């Protein structure tokens, strides 16, 4: 098993993602600098980590989506390589048009860091299979722009096609459309989510649900 974590200038969960994936799955993780034109071969997972790529200036993820490595990421994703964008990574996936919609400023205009309860809306994806029958998960969020937006037709389609993977279960922390916390592409290999599995991979961190997610895809 082999995974790559892409490092953009300003990424700050890159190490967390690598450690989380390694500890949860034993996979070998390579760090790939954003300026690389190519990805290592034989990848079973690409992770776009959280953080503030390019300071989140202009728009979150906008400048990172134009990084040289993103051409290779788009190509790999189109080839079916499982690709996971967490937080800033989710924003980058939207900006790179690998996922529909966009992430707007949180409704209350503030950065919010807190644990959230998630509903696993689709447990049949390659990222959620290891949750089995379980339909809830707990992870923390930490974002200022996690308010998912898409046109109504897009939202209907996402819901209809099972592309909504995670929803905020109790309280919607940021005003996200239809309580969406994570979505997957049509082909089922590109997942974007605001909550951090990379902060939930050991019991002492408060939850191991992130480890379950990593094990789903690299199981």
């Amino acid at each position: 098993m082999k995974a790559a974590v892409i490092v953009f200038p300003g990424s700050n969960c890159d190490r967390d993602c690598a450690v989380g994936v390694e500890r949860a799955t034993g996979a070998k993780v390579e760090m790939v600098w954003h300026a690389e034109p190519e990805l290592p071969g034989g990848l079973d997972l690409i992770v776009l980590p959280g953080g503030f790529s390019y300071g989140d200036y202009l728009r979150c993820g906008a400048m990172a989506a134009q990084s040289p490595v993103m051409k290779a990421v788009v190509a790999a994703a189109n080839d079916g390589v499982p690709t996971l964008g967490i937080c800033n990574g989710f924003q980058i996936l939207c900006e790179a048009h690998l996922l529909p919609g966009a992430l707007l400023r949180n409704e209350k205009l503030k950065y919010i860091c807190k644990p959230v309860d998630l509903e696993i809306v689709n447990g049949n994806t390659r990222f959620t299979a290891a949750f089995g029958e379980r339909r809830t998960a707990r992870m923390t969020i930490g974002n200022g722009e996690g308010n998912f937006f898409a046109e109504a037709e897009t939202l209907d389609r996402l819901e209809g096609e099972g592309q909504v993977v995670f929803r905020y279960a109790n309280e919607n922390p940021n005003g996200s459309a239809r309580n969406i916390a994570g979505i997957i592409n049509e082909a089922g290999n590109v997942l974007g989510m605001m909550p951090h599995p990379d902060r939930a991979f050991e019991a002492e961190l408060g939850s191991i649900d992130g480890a379950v997610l990593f094990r789903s895809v690299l199981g």
Partner: protein
Amino acid sequence: MRARVQVFLKPGVLDVQGKAIEGALHGLGFPGVDHVRVGKTIEFDLAGSDAAAAEDEVKAMCERLLANTVIESYRVEVA
């Protein structure tokens, strides 16, 4: 040449910042304020002297980076 790009959220996208500012202005005693929209302005110098070519170039910048056309619209001025 000096270019100015204005980027606004599209009409269907809730402008939470605009809404917050509207509420705050009402609270400060400016009740006549309505339909507040907040946008970004990006101004810069641009090498070259052909205004039409410059405008095309700036539009290309908008499409690629400066605006996210899923949620935003933009206006370009070059002078």
